[in-house]
């Protein structure tokens, strides 16, 4: 499959802070690729490098066949970006905003006017086209933000947390837009810290934490590592190696991770594994302080990998 983006060993350091610490991935033509991670994981920094806004500290990054450091102008013409901020002029209306940004891409006048009409139709703002953006709801602004990113008819679209602070209706509309655009062949990079969005939209997901990619696969494959669920057991005292070995050997347990005072069990079948785990704790007279069964999803994958909540 042809790669639209190749990132090899990307690092971005701000002094001692490693915002992105040596990540590599490829995005294939026609796919929706998700960057999933909590705030501060390095997602926006990665997008900023890909769109030429930020200079990388190290790494080879090729977008649509052009190096972001050697051929930034060619990269700019090939991409569309929907930034996390509502990057619009609040005193202008939708048409004026689109017309101004469209002119920055040298789109011929007649073509631009047609494009503006089509995009307003796409994001459902035709009826509000002449209203000042400052009077828009948060969701309407997000949809217009998306439209501006699509003005130049890019080959590759980057969306940085495009649903932050929007109402469910606008979120649904944005999802539909993204899926429709993808069906038309647009390759998309989508960053979010909402795991359900990544599961719903993305063909593949890279999970980021503290500037690194800690897992990269399809959502289904990542979730399947958890079996039918993840069990967290809180313990009062440190368990000895023999106890840990016996827990690991339980038939319904695939893997046990012992972190601080919590045991995280990846299971074959969560319900049966639970019975086995409780049985062993009773048999050895080991005290439990808490017990939790987590649904198998990307959030659980993140917790299993990092021991942290995705929305920390």
């Amino acid at each position, binding site marked *: 499959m042809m790669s639209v983006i190749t990132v090899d060993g990307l690092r971005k350091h701000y002094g001692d802070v490693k915002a992105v610490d040596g990540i590599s991935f490829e995005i294939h033509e026609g796919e929706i690729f998700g960057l999933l991670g909590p705030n501060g994981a390095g997602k926006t920094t990665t997008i900023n490098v890909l769109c030429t806004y930020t200079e990388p500290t190290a790494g080879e990054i090729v977008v649509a066949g052009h190096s972001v450091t050697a051929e930034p102008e060619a990269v700019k013409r090939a991409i569309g970006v929907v930034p996390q901020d509502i990057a619009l*002029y609040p005193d202008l209306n939708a048409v004026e905003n689109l017309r101004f940004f469209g002119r920055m*891409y040298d789109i011929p006048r007649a073509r631009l006017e047609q494009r503006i009409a089509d995009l307003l139709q796409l994001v459902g703002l035709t009826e509000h086209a002449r209203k000042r953006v400052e009077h828009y709801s948060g969701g309407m602004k997000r949809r217009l933000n998306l439209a*501006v990113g699509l003005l130049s008819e890019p080959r590759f679209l980057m969306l940085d947390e495009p649903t932050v602070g929007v109402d469910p209706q606008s979120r649904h509309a944005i999802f539909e837009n993204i899926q429709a655009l993808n069906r038309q062949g647009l390759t998309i990079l989508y960053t979010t810290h909402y795991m359900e969005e990544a599961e719903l939209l993305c063909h593949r997901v890279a999970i980021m934490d503290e500037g690194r990619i800690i897992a990269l696969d399809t959502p289904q494959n990542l979730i399947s590592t958890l079996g039918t669920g993840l069990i967290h057991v809180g313990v009062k005292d440190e368990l000895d190696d023999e106890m840990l070995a016996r827990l690991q050997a339980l038939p319904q347990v695939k893997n046990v991770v012992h972190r601080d005072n919590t045991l995280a069990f990846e299971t074959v079948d969560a319900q049966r594994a639970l019975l086995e785990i409780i049985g062993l704790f009773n048999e050895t007279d080991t005290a439990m302080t808490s017990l939790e069964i987590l649904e198998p999803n990307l959030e659980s994958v993140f917790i299993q990998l990092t021991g942290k909540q995705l929305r920390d």
Partner: protein
Amino acid sequence: MKKLLYIALNELHLLLKDRMAVIWMVVLPLGVTTIMGLVFGGFGRESEAVVIDLPVVDQDGGEMAAVVLDILSQTESLHVETEYDEETARQLVSDGKRAGVVIIPQGFSDAITSGRPTALELIVAPGGQTAPLLEGMVRGVASTFSSVQTTVEVVISEVQRATGSYDLDYEGIARRVVAIALERLEDPPVRARITTVGSAEEEFNIFDQMVPGYAVMFAMFTVLSAAGGILEEKERGTFKRLLIAPIPRWSLLGGKLMAQFLTGVGQIALMFLFGALVFHVNLGSSPLGLLLVTLATCWATTSLGILLVAVIRSRKQIHPITTLIILGSSAIGGSWYPLFMMPKAVQQVARVTLVAWAMEGYNRLMILGGSLADVWVDIGVLALYGAICFGVGLRLFRFKET
């Protein structure tokens, strides 16, 4: 180049959509200039002279005291009040209701006519702007009587030398000399001829100073505020959106600066037009000089803006800093008072501000009747000032994260 123009047009479009900005740019400068001009200088050329109410307490009641009252009463800028006693008059000064009071002491007339020393007393409020004026007037009256005494002594000495007689009527001679002196006051044999440099036939119009002064100050507010708008765009994200579009950097920044520059020029032009039509401001005899000083001023201001934006980088910080710079440089640079009226030290310090060079140029053209040749230095310094600020600002300006 096309994108630069689109960006400049967009900036002007945004400016016109902001009603508060338009009020700030147009209504406020015209309003403030009008009010300040009327307060300090009256209305245009038909301004009435300022008249100072001056209580005079006559404790002497004699012939020479009457002469003092007569002289002061004939002074156009004074309205003499004789109805107060000393205590009341002093209280009026203490209360700030009068700028000063003159006391003619008992025995004043006798002292004058007998050649003894005496004094006219002037009591003024501390820090009053009219105190030096009153001081000058009272000294003038005192000087007249000193001359009378000197003249009488000379006359008597000469007569004694010529006739050998020592039985002369000092008092009579003194009265005669005073009478002659009073006559001469109306038609003095020695006059002071005062000529105004430049437009000798025209009176000084306070608005010739006020209009350019406030035009420069408010243009600085507008331009530097627009420069701060770049920081606002950075925070809002639209600047980033433009940076990741295929736009040359020079077009991006150039478009924004062009809009700021044109706004400044337009604002100054509007102020001058208003001043000329409403307050008959004298625009001088060199339209080209006026245009070049204005262009150079706006260029320097626009460049100062990009330097400040490059150095400060935060919208919260830039507004108080620019306000401080504008008010400080306006105060010492001659926006509020002509530069040549400032103390020497202030004039020297003011040279670091662009306002001083702009106002020197405008004053030379509009008050002193200068030509283009008289303002070349001012234009050159402003152009250089702009070039330095622009160069340093551009070097320090952060287009993207590094």
